[in-house]
C-alpha cells in the first residue's frame, strides 16, 4: 500500500517546526504500518485493537503534551494536535482512546491531582500500563452535565459514590475511572469534585453499550457505581465545581478539532486516488465535473480546518486560547469532516459502502464525534453566548 503523503494545499507544513513535522511523520508512518492493517478487522469484529496500546505508549502518544518529569513526552500543543490528526486519519475510535487516556484522564490528574497522585499514575498511564476512562455524562445529563445526580458522600475514612455514567469511552477496558460527582446538594454544581476510582473497587461495574453503529473499534460503556467506597486520597484535591471537568473537555476538544481534519484527509485522499483510477463512460470519473467539484469542496474544507487547528494550537501554546475558540474549531472541523466523509463515500459509488475503503467507516465514526464532547449544536450556543452575551441554554 502506498504511504499517506498528507494533504497540504496551502503549504501549512512551512508553518510547522522541524520537530513538529518529524513527530507528525512518525505517527503518520506508524498509522500506515500498524493501525491501518488491523482496523478493518477490528471495526467489523467490533473490538478495540488492544495490541496497539503498548505500541502507542512506546511512541509516546499518551498525554504527549504533559511534562517529561511525569514520564510524558513534553510536546507543545501543535505537536500534540498533529498526533491526534494522524491517529484519527487512521480511525476516530483509536484517536478517542488516546484522547480519553491523555486529555480526559491524565490531564485532570496533572491539573487537579496531588503530587503523590501524579507520581503514582501519570508515568504508568503514559506507559499504557494503567488505562483510564472519564465519567461525567449520565443517562439523563448529556449536554447539561451540571444536572448530574451521581453523588459522593463523605465518610470517616473516605467517600461513598453512587450513580451511573453513560457513553464512557474505554469504560470496560479501564483500570481507573475519573468519576465526577456532587459532594453537596444536587442543586449545587460548585460541589462537583473528581475522584480516581480503581475499576476493581467493589460496587463498580462497567457494561458494554450494545448496538452501536459508530466507533465500532472503540469500547463504549455504561458505568454503575453502587456504594463504591474509596479512600480520602481518591479525591482530586484541586478539583472544584463544574469548571474542572469542563477544563478537561477543552483539552479533549482541542484534540478533536485536529483529529477530525485527519479523518477528512483520509477520505479526501482515498476519493482523489479513486477518482483517477475508476473509469466510467470511457474516462476516469475524476475528469467529470461533478466529481471535480466534490473534490474541490473537500479540499477547501480541509484547508480551512487545517488553518483553524494550526492557529488554535499556536494560541494554546502562547497561553491565550479561550475555550470558545476551541468550540469554534471543534464545531467547524467535525462538521466539515462529516461532509467530506459523506461526499467521499458517494464518490466511491458502490465500493464506498465496503469496509476495505475507509470513507464509510469514517463517516459513521464522525457522527459520534459530531455528537460527543459537546454536540455541534451546543458549541453553536457557546459561541452564540460568547458573541451576544446572552445564554440560550
Amino acid at each position: 500500500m502506498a504511504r499517506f503523503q498528507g494533504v497540504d494545499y496551502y503549504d501549512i507544513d512551512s508553518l510547522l517546526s522541524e520537530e513538529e513535522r518529524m513527530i507528525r511523520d512518525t505517527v503518520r508512518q506508524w498509522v500506515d504500518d500498524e493501525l491501518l492493517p488491523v482496523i478493518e478487522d477490528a471495526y467489523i469484529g467490533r473490538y478495540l485493537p488492544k495490541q496497539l496500546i503498548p505500541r502507542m505508549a512506546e511512541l509516546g502518544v499518551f498525554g504527549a503534551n504533559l511534562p517529561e518529569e511525569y514520564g510524558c513526552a513534553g510536546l507543545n500543543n501543535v505537536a500534540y494536535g498533529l498526533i491526534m490528526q494522524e491517529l484519527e486519519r487512521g480511525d476516530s475510535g483509536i484517536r478517542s482512546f488516546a484522547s480519553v487516556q491523555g486529555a480526559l484522564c491524565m490531564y485532570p490528574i496533572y491539573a487537579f491531582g496531588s503530587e503523590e497522585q501524579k507520581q503514582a499514575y501519570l508515568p504508568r498511564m503514559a506507559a499504557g500500563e494503567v488505562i483510564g476512562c472519564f465519567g461525567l455524562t449520565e443517562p439523563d445529563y448529556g449536554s447539561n452535565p451540571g444536572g448530574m445526580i451521581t453523588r459522593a458522600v463523605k465518610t470517616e475514612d473516605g467517600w461513598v459514590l453512587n450513580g451511573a455514567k453513560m457513553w464512557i469511552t474505554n469504560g470496560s477496558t479501564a483500570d481507573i475511572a475519573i468519576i465526577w460527582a456532587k459532594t453537596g446538594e444536587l442543586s449545587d454544581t460548585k460541589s462537583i469534585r473528581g475522584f480516581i476510582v480503581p475499576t476493581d473497587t467493589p460496587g463498580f461495574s462497567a457494561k458494554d453499550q450494545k448496538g452501536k453503529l459508530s466507533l465500532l473499534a472503540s469500547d463504549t460503556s455504561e458505568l454503575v457505581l453502587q456504594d463504591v467506597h474509596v479512600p480520602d486520597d481518591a479525591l482530586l484535591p484541586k478539583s472544584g465545581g463544574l469548571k474542572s471537568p469542563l477544563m478537561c473537555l477543552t483539552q479533549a476538544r482541542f484534540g478533536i478539532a485536529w483529529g477530525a481534519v485527519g479523518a477528512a484527509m483520509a477520505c479526501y485522499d482515498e476519493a482523489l486516488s479513486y477518482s483517477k483510477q475508476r473509469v466510467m463512460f470511457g474516462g476516469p470519473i475524476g475528469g467529470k465535473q461533478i466529481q471535480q467539484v466534490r473534490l474541490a469542496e473537500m479540499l477547501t474544507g480541509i484547508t480551512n480546518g487545517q488553518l483553524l487547528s494550526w492557529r488554535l494550537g499556536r494560541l494554546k501554546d502562547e497561553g491565550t486560547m479561550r475555550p470558545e475558540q476551541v468550540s469554534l474549531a471543534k464545531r467547524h472541523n467535525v462538521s466539515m469532516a462529516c461532509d467530506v466523509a459523506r461526499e467521499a463515500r458517494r464518490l466511491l459509488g458502490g465500493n464506498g459502502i465496503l469496509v476495505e475503503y475507509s470513507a464509510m467507516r469514517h463517516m459513521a465514526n464522525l457522527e459520534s464525534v459530531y455528537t460527543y464532547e459537546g454536540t455541534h449544536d451546543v458549541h453553536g450556543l457557546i459561541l452564540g453566548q460568547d458573541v451576544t452575551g446572552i445564554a440560550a441554554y
Partner: protein
Amino acid sequence: MRVKSIVCVKRVPDTEARVRIAADGQSIETAGVKFVLNPYDEFAVEAALKHKEAAGAGDVTVLSVGGGESAETLRTALAMGADAAVLLKSAGPLEGLAVARVIAEEVKGREYDLLLFGMKAIDDDLQAVGPMVAELLGIPAATAVTEFSVEGGKATATREIEGGSEVVELKLPCAITLTKGAYEPRYASLKGIMAAKKKPLEEKPAAGGESGVKVEKLSYPAERSAGRIVGEGPDAVPELLRLLRNEAKVL
C-alpha cells in the same frame, strides 16, 4: 564490552516522491520534494543501536556529507537513539569517490569498532561508497550484510548472495554495508525526537573531496508502449500464447 559505531547516512528523496529532473539536466528538482533518511541507512542505524544495547555500552555517531538541510536527516537518526552527529558540509552535490574521500578524511582521526553504511542510497544506487571508504582507510569490508555479531575483536557477518547466504569474519575495526534483514528500523519515539534537539550535532566543511567523475546528463526511463488487446474470451487464448511465445518470448 562496548561497541563504538560510526554510521554514514544520506538524505534522499522519499521513495513515494515523484522526482523531476532540474533545468540543468544534471540534477533533480528539490523544491516540493520530501526528503528522508535513506532506508538502507536506517538498517545501519538500527544495527548500530542494537549492538550498542546488546553490549550494554558504547556509542553511535551518525555522519553525513551534504548541504545544511542534511542536519534534519541526522536529527532523524539522533531521534532514533544515536548519540552524536557530524555533518560534513559540501557546497554542492559530490560524486561517490569524492564522498568516500571526505568520509575517510573525517573518520581516520576517530576511534571506532564499526563503520556502518546502508548497502546503497536509493537515489543514485551507487553501492560503492562503503567499500571505497574501507579501501581508503585500509580496513576490511563486507557488503550486503543482513545480520552480524561482534565479539572478541571481530565481526561475523551474514551476506546475502545469489541463492543463499555467506558468512564472513572481519577483524575490527571494519566496514559493513547493510541490506534488509535482521534490523527492522525502530520508530523514533516522540521523546526521542525532543531529545534529539539537545544532542551534539557538529558541522564542519567537507575536506578532500576530489573526484574524476562528473554527472553529464539525467534522463527519464523510456515510456512504456501501450498494451494491446488480442481478442476476448477463450478464442483469444491461442493468439495470446503465440504472442507470448514468439514476440514477448516469455514462455
